């Protein structure tokens, strides 16, 4: 124990014309059980009072604190410094608008995604709340929950070469949501509707299976399996469209 950490932090305030992006390195005595949440707060309390970063739950469930830690996106709050080398570099998550330093605007990005992909249950009819709920198979409920566990941290976007190259790409976060609603019997949309949303190069056909999302998702969502499942479904839907058109003629 008793290492001295050397933490290099990306610093820049895009609203300040005098600010230029730079790396600022601080030394910090490591403490037992220290996470990046603790380390960054110590730096803010001592040497860097204006350092911007985002933590909310500090327990790895809210997705606020995603940043690039030694090159790879991850949740800072649950990253123990003990798991890192002495030299640590921290960058803001790429692919999102920079607010300042390590703080990025994932919220606006995710809201736009939700509007674009309509990531809510499309009800066939308003439920009658006095009646028993509609039954759902226990296994299917667990499968839906498995995909519903996404915390919109943005790591999959930062981990995805495609999303880094092509900012319009909906990424694993968007595709996983469609997979989630496709699985959910409460949602009245069918594959023709899904194809409209993601049957293009900004959607499922833009995915090049680089697997950054699968490998770096902090929640370990089964993204490869979901993306493949969607691709098969959407390819089938694309073919079906062509044959349907011929049938109509």
């Amino acid at each position, binding site marked *: 124990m008793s290492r001295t950490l050397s933490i290099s932090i990306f610093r820049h305030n895009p609203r300040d014309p005098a600010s230029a992006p730079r790396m600022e390195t601080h030394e910090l005595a490591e403490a037992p059980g220290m996470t990046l949440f603790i380390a960054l707060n110590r730096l803010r309390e001592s040497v860097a*009072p204006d350092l911007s970063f985002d933590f909310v739950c500090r327990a790895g469930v809210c997705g606020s604190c995603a940043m690039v830690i030694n090159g790879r996106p991850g949740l800072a709050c649950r990253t123990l410094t003990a798991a890192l080398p002495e030299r640590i570099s921290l960058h803001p998550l790429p692919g999102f608008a920079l607010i300042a330093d390590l703080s990025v605007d994932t919220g606006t990005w995710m809201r736009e995604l939700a509007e674009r992909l309509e990531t809510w249950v499309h009800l066939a009819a308003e439920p009658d709340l006095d009646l*028993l709920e509609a039954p*759902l198979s226990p296994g299917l409920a667990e499968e839906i929950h498995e995909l519903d566990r996404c915390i919109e941290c943005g790591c999959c976007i930062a981990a995805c070469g495609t999303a880094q190259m092509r900012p319009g790409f909906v990424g694993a976060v968007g595709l996983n949501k469609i997979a989630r609603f496709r699985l959910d019997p*409460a949602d009245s949309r069918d594959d023709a509707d899904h194809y409209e949303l993601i049957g293009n190069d900004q959607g499922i056909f833009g995915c090049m299976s680089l697997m950054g999302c699968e490998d770096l998702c902090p929640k370990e969502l089964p993204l490869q399996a979901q993306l493949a499942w969607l691709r098969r479904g959407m390819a089938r839907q694309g073919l079906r469209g062509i044959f349907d058109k011929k049938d109509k003629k």
Partner: protein
Amino acid sequence: MKVGHTDVLVIGGGLAGLRCAIGARRRGLEVRILSLVPAKRSHSVAAQGGMQASLGNTVRGAGDNEDLHFEDTVRGSDWGCDQLVARMFTHMAPKAVRELAAWGVPWNRVERGSAEAIINGQRVILTERDEAHGLITARDFGGTRKWRTCYTSDGTGHTMLYALGDRAVAESIPVDERCEAIALIHDGGRCQGAVVRDLVSGELSAWLASATVIATGGYGRIYGVSTNAIINEGIGAAIALETGVARLGNMEAVQFHPTAIVPAGILVTEGCRGDGGVLRDVDGHRFMPDYEPEKAELASRDVVSRRMAEHMRRGKGVKGDGPEHLWLDITGLGAAHIDRKLREVRDICHHFLGIDPAREWIPVRPTQHYSMGGIRTDHRGESPTLRGLFACGEAACWDLHGFNRLGGNSVAETVVAGMLVGEYVADHVRDEGSAIRLSPALARAFIAREQAALEAILARPAEEDAHAIRRAMEATMTEQVGLFRDEAGLATAVETLTGLLARAGRIGTRNKRRDANPELVLAWRLPKMLKLALVAAEGALARRESRGAHCREDYPARNDRDWLKRTLVSWQADGPHFEYEPIEVEAMELPPGFRGYGTRNIIEHPGTAARLGDTEAQRAALAGAGRDAVQAALLPFEALLPERYRGRNARLGEVGQ
């Protein structure tokens, strides 16, 4: 200066704020949500174990209904709650769960047939009914007579928040993220909206609104170690307090959760114990049955937390590098159960402790968790003293929880209160909207006042260090306004906090940025947090009894004779002013009684016996009339509900009756 207009301004984007906004929006109103963070990052997301609703689908929940849920809630509150509100709540909870199910919350479901479970340390076989297959299941939680807590693994708050967050998008409700309400605009009698600071640009603006709803959650971060998110600094309650008109209720009622991990203070759900986990001491001994033979680990939270502290005082805690702690043992549940039903717990243990809870014990200790106190409202969620100001969820003292909240009742409250208050807010705007005169000039005056206050912080030299003051506040609250309280400690706390509040006025900032400046934010928020800390400590000092989570070692009895009342506080020029509001025994459906923990230590209210006789007489007179008729005679509430929510809740076995 930007001054905007909206029908309803909701401050806070967690479960309560979102559901309230959705309700008002569906009534055709223009609604805007302000949130410190993206709505889906709100602290609601951290609720793990579940939401109480008396569906009665699982075999261990069969026979459950609103009456049982009501009684558990009132007992849990140590008779400190508003029983009318508890009635409205327990009636609404099943509707809330079913609505969320329709909106996509993938509640875990009942699986027909037999499966093994662990109850009170014993392996038992439970056989679920065929007709319940696929309906929403429930797990056991503390202080309840039935398995009533609906859940999605241990990510319940997350799935609920995402369902509502996405529903708000579906309803096109704008959410101003990274915006903080820094003052309520009011004319002494009516709230007209809020001054808003953009936390990115630092600019001030104002929203004028016919109704303003505060749903900003609790104030746990006035404590040093808390399970709360770090944004739970109570600023919503503080700006209400600072109006001098609105009152906060029961601020001394602070809950400590038995099982937060050591040292990080991160919650591991009550579901761990509900699913069969046990607490062990330094010798590996399961000690809770020694104290509470009947409920053991599943006694009410306040009771378990106190018993744990008591046991540590007897030298049975585990002492190591960090704070003293006990063990939570869920190894008996098996890896398969933990992977499916307690995976967040597994992840938290893995990332923060480096252990596998399927094989190793989890170090835990009681930690600040929930704020029963908040902005005092009537059953409609409106402040009785500042019209047009509403509050719901943890930010409010709607008073569902009294002095101790049952596990699973908080997320349930957020959504239920959101559903109800959304309707009442819409009624308010419909009934009074045209008569409400919103004043842009007033809004500009408030903006100017706040701007001046912020400029003053930036202008002054940094005589005091904000972090040092904050740490002193946290330590004071933890040590002297914690699980056990007494006169001397509380008096010292009040003195210390008063001094800190004076010093907080001299906090400066080293950097003078107006935008995205964490130093400025802390310098501005800290005096507000100190005011909350001070009113909590003073309220605790004044309350010379022990009730629920408020445990005075020098006054161990629950004193219904003198203290069956709610603490109300307002902030005036000379500091906090306390008043008390009686909790009417004459109106109680369930008159004060013994909760069944430890030994009976109650100083009776003079009206208790009479009301007990009265309720029993009414029950006898209505024998055979059915539970609804009895209930309606004892505490009528149906007429107070919005019409759309008055229907009777269907249950298995009751269908068609």
